[in-house]
């Protein structure tokens, strides 16, 4: 081969060498050029602009460009949100637009202990805004719209009566009152017609949930769930409550405040511990201890908390036993007693209720209304059911059943619903057997309630 052919190789060396070189340079600069550096530059400029003394200015100029992160090993999270949101903990940035906005401090939830994504969701490890905010393929936890943020409280705290998360409380109330549990299990309580809801918030988006409530079949083809007619506010609340059900279990420290002291918790404790055995409320109850109707007037809250923790310490010689209440439980009971004189909460105490009143609560607790309608009035569609394609109402059960028959029917259920047209698919809704789910005491109350639904003034029929 001649020298010329070798010289041609040199040309190729130059071309390919330059190509590889420029690709290396390109790759490096593409990698170096990251969103977060721009945000940090802007932050540093803002700090310099705001500096009033030369010293402050010098400090601001020395702020390093670096990735900032909150390491949360217990939560298996690394939150790098503060790489761009640099002023979350600086109140002087209140009113600034994102990413430099200030985040009001949570005294109970310091950033260094909780990070950001445990409440806001999103992808904490990411360092580009699109990836971090999480609306990207293959990331199941996009950021929660702020109007649903209280859903995250439910990860670590009980929803019931949580005074710090009113939206969440409201969501749970809508859930319980709408009879969802008639078909769906949540925390082990509920029917078996629909899927369990314990993890629904981890893999469904707010949009999906909203659509699903209004028209279930539009997002889950073939769904047997009747469309729900929620008012706008209720729809948002129950969506929020569903989003709170992620099935995550908070570890260690994060699980230490499961229940936030509240009147409701105090009321449940009051019922469970059998306080009414010795004390009376509204004239009902025991007489060993003093009546509690106006105890809130007689005693300070500090005295009551101390009394629950250690009765002998503030009331020497008292016969009240020491119940080993936690600080939170003592506070909840105190709150309840203080409220006792302000509101008529005593009538909510199950042990002070009539069986029919208790039965109404049972009807609510197990979601009977989901199919049989509020107050047993029916009206929920059940395509191809012989009963006018509706789930039957319950207001006349007193005419067709004895108490024992009714009880039996609830416990055993009815798996096969008679079809109107045998050629069409079987009716999707059916009566699950509630034996082993509803407790014995509850079933008696429920039967009493159902019998009581008979419209007043009507003669007993046949």
């Amino acid at each position: 081969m001649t020298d010329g052919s070798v010289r041609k190789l040199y040309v190729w060396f130059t071309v390919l060498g330059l190509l590889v070189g420029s690709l290396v340079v390109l790759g490096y600069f593409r990698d170096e050029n990251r969103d977060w550096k721009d945000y940090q530059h802007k932050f540093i400029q803002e700090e310099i602009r705001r500096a009033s003394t030369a010293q402050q200015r010098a400090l601001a100029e020395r702020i390093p460009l670096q990735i900032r992160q909150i390491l949360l090993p217990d939560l298996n999270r690394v939150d790098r949100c503060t790489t761009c949101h640099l002023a979350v903990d600086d109140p002087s940035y209140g009113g600034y637009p994102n990413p430099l906005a200030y985040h009001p401090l949570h005294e109970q939830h310091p950033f260094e202990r909780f990070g950001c994504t445990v409440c806001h969701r999103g992808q904490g490890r990411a360092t580009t805004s699109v990836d971090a905010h999480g609306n990207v393929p293959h990331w199941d936890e996009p950021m929660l719209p702020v109007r649903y943020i209280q859903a995250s409280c439910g990860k670590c705290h009980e929803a019931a009566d949580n005074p710090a998360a009113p939206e969440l409380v409201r969501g749970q109330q809508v859930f319980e009152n709408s009879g969802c549990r008639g078909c769906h299990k949540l925390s082990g309580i509920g029917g078996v017609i629909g899927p369990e809801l314990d993890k629904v918030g981890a893999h469904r988006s707010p949009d999906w949930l909203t659509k699903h409530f209004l028209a279930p079949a539009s997002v889950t083809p073939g769904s047997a769930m009747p469309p729900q007619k929620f008012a706008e506010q209720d729809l948002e609340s129950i969506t929020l409550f569903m989003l709170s059900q992620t099935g995550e279990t908070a570890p260690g420290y994060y699980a230490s405040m499961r229940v936030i002291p509240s009147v409701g918790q105090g009321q449940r404790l009051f019922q469970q511990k059998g306080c009414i055995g010795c004390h009376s409320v509204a004239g009902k109850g025991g007489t060993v201890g003093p009546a509690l109707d106006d105890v809130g007037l007689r005693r300070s809250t500090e005295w009551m908390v101390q009394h629950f923790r250690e009765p002998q310490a503030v009331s020497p010689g008292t016969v009240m036993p020491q119940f080993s209440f936690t600080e939170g439980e003592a506070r909840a009971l105190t709150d309840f007693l203080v409220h006792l004189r302000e509101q008529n909460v005593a009538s909510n105490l199950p042990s002070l209720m009539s069986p029919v009143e208790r039965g109404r609560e049972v009807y609510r607790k197990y979601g009977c209304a989901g199919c049989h309608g509020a107050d047993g009035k029916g009206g929920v569609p059940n395509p191809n059911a012989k009963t006018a394609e509706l789930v039957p109402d319950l207001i006349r059960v007193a005419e067709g059943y004895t108490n024992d028959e009714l009880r039996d029917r609830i416990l055993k259920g009815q798996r096969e619903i008679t079809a109107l047209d045998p050629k069409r698919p079987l009716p999707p809704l059916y009566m699950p057997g509630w034996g082993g789910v509803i407790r014995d005491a509850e079933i008696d109350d429920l039967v009493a309630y159902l019998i009581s639904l008979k419209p007043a003034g009507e003669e007993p029929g046949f």
Partner: protein
Amino acid sequence: MKAPPLKKIWQWFERTRVGRSIFRVGLPQSNLERAQAMVSSFLLHIQPAKVNRHSLRASYSFGLGLISLYLFLILIVTGVLLMFYYVPSTEQAYNNMKDLQFVVSVGLVMRNMHRWAAHLMVIFVLLHMCRVFYTGAYKRPREFNWVLGVGLFLLTLSLSFTGYLLPWDQLAFWAITVGTNIAAYAPYIGPKLKYLMLGGNVVGQEALIRFYALHVIVLPAVAGFMIAVHLWRVRKDGGLSRPDEPGDTIQQIELGKLPTNKTYGLMELARGMTPQVGRNPADEVFAWPHLVFRELLLFLLVVAMVLFLGIFWNAPLEQLANPVHPPNPAKAPWYFLGLQELVSYSAFWGGVVVPGVLVMALLVLPYMDRDRKGVGRWFPRERVVANTIFTVCLVIAIVLTTIGSLFRGPNWSWQEPWKRPPTVTEGR
């Protein structure tokens, strides 16, 4: 000709004490030095001092074997860099991928390059094998090197397959689940083999650590060794195959026929062919620069190709592996999708018989097909039967792989890729 400044500096360096201690022969100026440069360098000595012009022709070999070698080298370099950040634990592996993407400097590019180079290596090793087949280059005296090549092809697949699990995302988890299930179809040993691979009955931490050890130590070491032997055999079998090769004269000296009452120098024992024997010197050129420079150029080209892919296309990463949420359909890595497609018709035939017969056929091929006609030319008329059979098998494999990759939807039902429903996965 006036030497350019860089060359001058180099020549000065060669003359220093240090320079002379490193390079026995400097930049060669004469033909003698060109030959010496090849023989005296560790990296170059595996190649001859002079090569046949035919071997330099890009249209003959397309450099496919070399490209495969270069991809292997790129994989080792990027792989070692990835090892600095990777912890083979089900708790950490996926997070390591995210950190590579979001905080490690050029971490994402390294991972992309590793991924694309791995896919390319599977393709180029296969293409290399096709080239060797279509030119009849597996015939005597290169039979055993073909067998080594088949082994290297299987090793390449194993390397890719073991690496597939390491990101510990849904793609990895289910591809390995499906892949090891195919292996379990083998009679008698299948289930045991799967258990051995996974260290259990399902993909989990034990499988991850096994795949990791195989991927970063065992398989690369074995592959590196076999590549060395493969290259050594190329040299010892007389370089690249070519049409005018005096094939039958290439033979081992029969030691038994040599008188034993004298001693022998290496030259007398070495195999029959040196570049000079039996060849026309006009067909030969010096390996430096004609071969070595071309090899370096090809290296630059391969690096450029992989860099380009790595900079502009991201390697896939799906959700964290979730053993209770299988995607529908769950698919093996793409190079096994032909097998998965066959398995969907018959587990035994697709998972055992077909791959078993194919590998056996490849291994015994050079010993069955012994006619030396048509060696060293593409698609020679003398080899029309062999080439037709090979092409039919190849086309079937490609068609099956394409069907498995693109035309299979939920429950492995037929689905044209352009008619895919908007959301196959469950709604959010």
